[in-house]
């Protein structure tokens, strides 16, 4: 008789999820769109902001530079990532798992470490520049496009590497042998069969490199010199003219978002017909190379990974050098650590508090939403699933500006509070937890829960007693990965922070701009240590290892 949908626990969760997504994501993005088409003074509708961006040479340059940076970062990541993936999966390379682990660490390390570590190495006083000069090589100046692309290529190659390697590992050797038996030589086989098969993975990795390159704010503002990008322009417009020209800052953000969206759509279109899931009776076996070729392969692999890890090594080394203020002295000491503990203990505490708070929220809601998406195939669940793709694409700067535009006026006036930073971290990382929870649930057969119910457990009891414990390792791994990204978040925090709510990445960024290398390195080392520990724990509890991070 009851025609109304049953209002059970899961309907409640779904309702909460929609409210959360609407308030924390849809509303801010709507606000920033509105702000971009409204005249600051008169409040009338206008496209003047966009006209200025597309018409003014400075903004045109920012757009073009952003495209160059995105494309360059992407190409660099592919040039490093694809050979590394091919070599480590197709040939016997000693220490393959070490290479993968170091790549993961490079990937999850604080985003702007690369930028200032490369300044320390290749800046005008850098040791590497001096070293290269001795052998007659003069690299281009680090400040500018060269520095940005160097940092991005070495930062984002692990996406291409890990995704491509995992895809290469899932091609049945039979397929390549079939090509060979049909008369395709090694090169033709690679370009006609192997490469098209890994194209979806390569392009996903490339897409991530592109989007993250043009979204990244820390690296170009530290090492970019005079090169203006959309992300840095939006930030400057916002900070320089606080309350003065949010319209132009918003419009710049919208353009940045539009570029990201376009690239994502293009990639989706390029892989549209490639629903490739073969049965895997045979797994590829790495071949042993002849000694000379093997030596070359090892050198290439280790050189790439080492270059990617170099910034972290330099930062850790620098943090233990003796300093006073910006001046380094010879010898080692822990002055930098003493200084950060004395001067900015609240910054360290803030970082841990905000990251933990957001991760607790993420783990709880992410698990519940993941359950709905995996087990209930309703229209509402499908809609939610699609909406949760949005945070993947929205750059931190854009989301940060959207939050300021939305939440510094009633009804929800929370700018300057810790809550706004926690909520921002929460909504940006929620989709990752949902995805990891869904993927665990796909491995847990639905039948097991039905078995519990048939034995007399209520649905909620079945979930709590049977499903949840089985999901636990995955939830913890997902939470730790969210924690890693949350504690390393810079761009949105930099827009949302006030003195009281400063976090470690913000402090590092400000220290680097002030030339306080010691302080920056010590704080970065703390972040690296926390990140490394979290990665270690994920490795211990997750059997997916490095593939869990991409």
């Amino acid at each position, binding site marked *: 008789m009851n025609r109304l949908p049953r209002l059970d626990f899961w309907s409640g969760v779904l309702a909460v999820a929609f409210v959360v997504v609407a308030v924390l994501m849809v509303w801010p993005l709507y606000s920033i769109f509105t702000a971009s088409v409204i005249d600051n003074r008169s409040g009338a509708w206008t496209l003047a902001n966009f006209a200025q961006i597309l018409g003014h040479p400075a903004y045109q340059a920012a757009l073009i530079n952003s495209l160059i940076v995105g494309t360059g970062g992407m190409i660099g990541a592919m040039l490093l990532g694809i050979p590394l993936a091919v070599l480590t999966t197709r040939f016997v390379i000693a220490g393959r798992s070490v290479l993968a682990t170091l790549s993961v660490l490079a990937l999850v390390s604080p985003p702007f470490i690369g930028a200032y570590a490369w300044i320390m190495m290749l800046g005008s006083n850098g040791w590497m520049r001096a070293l290269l000069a001795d052998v007659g090589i003069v690299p281009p100046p680090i400040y500018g496009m060269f520095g940005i692309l160097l940092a991005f290529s070495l930062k984002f190659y692990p996406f291409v590497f890990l995704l491509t390697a995992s895809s290469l590992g899932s091609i049945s050797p039979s397929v390549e042998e079939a090509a060979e038996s049909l008369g395709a030589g090694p090169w033709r086989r690679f370009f006609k069969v192997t490469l098209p098969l890994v*194209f979806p993975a390569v392009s996903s990795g490339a897409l991530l490199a592109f989007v993250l390159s043009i979204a990244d704010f820390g690296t170009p503002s530290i090492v970019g010199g005079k090169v203006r990008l959309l992300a840095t322009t939006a930030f400057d417009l916002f900070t320089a003219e606080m309350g003065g020209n949010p319209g132009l800052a918003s419009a710049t953000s919208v353009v940045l978002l539009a570029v990201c969206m376009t690239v994502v759509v293009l990639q989706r279109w390029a892989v549209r017909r490639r629903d490739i899931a073969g049965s895997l009776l045979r797994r590829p076996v790495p071949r042993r190379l002849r000694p000379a070729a093997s030596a070359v392969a090892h050198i290439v692999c280790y050189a790439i990974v080492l270059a990617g890890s170099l910034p972290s090594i330099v930062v850790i080394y620098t943090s233990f050098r003796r300093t006073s203020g910006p001046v380094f002295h010879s010898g080692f000491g822990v002055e930098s650590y003493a200084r950060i503990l004395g001067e900015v203990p609240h910054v360290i505490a803030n970082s841990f508090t905000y990251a933990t708070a957001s991760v607790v929220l993420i783990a709880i809601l992410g698990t519940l939403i993941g359950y709905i998406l995996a087990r209930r195939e309703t229209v509402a669940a499908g809609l939610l699933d699609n909406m949760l793709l949005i945070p993947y694409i929205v750059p931190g700067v854009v989301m940060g500006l959207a939050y300021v535009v939305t939440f510094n006026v009633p009804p929800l006036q929370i700018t300057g509070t810790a809550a706004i930073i926690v909520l921002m971290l929460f909504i940006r990382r929620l989709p990752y937890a949902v995805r990891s929870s869904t993927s665990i649930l796909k491995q847990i057969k639905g039948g097991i829960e039905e078995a519990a119910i048939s034995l007399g457990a209520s649905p909620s009891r079945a979930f709590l007693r049977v499903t949840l414990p089985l999901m636990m390792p995955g939830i913890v791994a997902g939470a730790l990965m969210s924690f890693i990204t949350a504690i390393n978040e810079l761009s949105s925090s930099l827009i949302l922070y006030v003195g009281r709510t400063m976090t470690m990445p913000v402090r590092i960024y400000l220290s680097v701009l002030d030339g306080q290398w010691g302080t920056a390195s010590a704080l970065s080392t703390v972040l690296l240590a926390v990140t490394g520990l979290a990665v270690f724990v994920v490795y211990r509890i997750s059997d997916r290892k490095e593939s869990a991070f991409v």
Partner: protein
Amino acid sequence: MARVELRHIGKSYPGVQALDDVELAIESGEFFTLLGPSGCGKTTLLRTVAGFIRQERGEVLVAGQRIDDIPAYRRNIGLVFQDYAIFPHMTVGDNVAFGLSNRRRPRDEIAQRVTRALDLVRLGGYADRLPHQLSGGQQQRVGLARAVVIEPQILLMDEPLSNLDAKLRVELRDDIRDLQHSLGITTLYVTHDQEEALVISDRICVMHSGRVHQVGTPWEVYAQPATLFVAAFVGAMNVIADLPVDAAGTLSFGAEPRTLPMLAGRDRVTLAIRLEDMTLVAATEAVPDDALALDGVVDKISFAGREAFYRVRLDAGPQIQAHVHRPERHLLEHSGARLRLILPLARLHMFDPATGRRIGDAS
């Protein structure tokens, strides 16, 4: 179409002798099957011919030419895989065309030959489909068309049916046989399924631990197994291991002793007999001169419709399976009954317990 010769092929992996001095000749146009359990070396041998494994010793000749130094992609050999190995990113038509475009054939010739090959495997009209839209059986037909369209000198098939369900397997098995017949292409086929091997092959090579145990027609392999291994692997066989024999060749095992001249001078023998070669009679029935009789108690009867299997515990100890064709109802109520198994001497297989080799023919 070409004759294939394998001369003294040897290949070892750490701790395993994968191929041990394998010597075979496959006649032109022949359907030749390598049969054996997993790990017997059959796939290694096939992949050696394909060019994916390089043997350590010996040589491979196709039509009288050594091919060992020719890379796989220059050997004109068609290959059909267990996991189909269809290129998932290409249409059915492009899959079949792949080998021809590698050979730089003119476009209209390719189109023509692709159409013909797809018709041949009854997939006419499927050229524009993508592989994931096809069933496993259809995918394997694509694999077959793709392998034969290049008109290879030899066709190699590595357990092409083992991923399919039982009904499809029989259907495609017959299609493969018909296709091979009509094209007359020399075919080397690998399987672990003895029934499949018996049905499909002109000749079978039974392998075990990297060695050839027997090469023969399906009838020879089934009716005259050369070794105890072949006897036990091909078809169901009762084996009574290691019985004593006296100097005159008299076997005292069973209800009445029987003297077999070919056993004279041996002191031990292993007997084997097919399930369907025995007759079940009342425990008191007389034993014919040309048969061995074994007495025992029916342990269990498994009824399977057109046939039934009796498990009999012999008084002498071992258990034996016997086969009853079209069982009558009353025969199914014999559980626990005593009965006598009549084993015609002509149907007995005898093996040297030490070497496992067949001893002459009992007649």
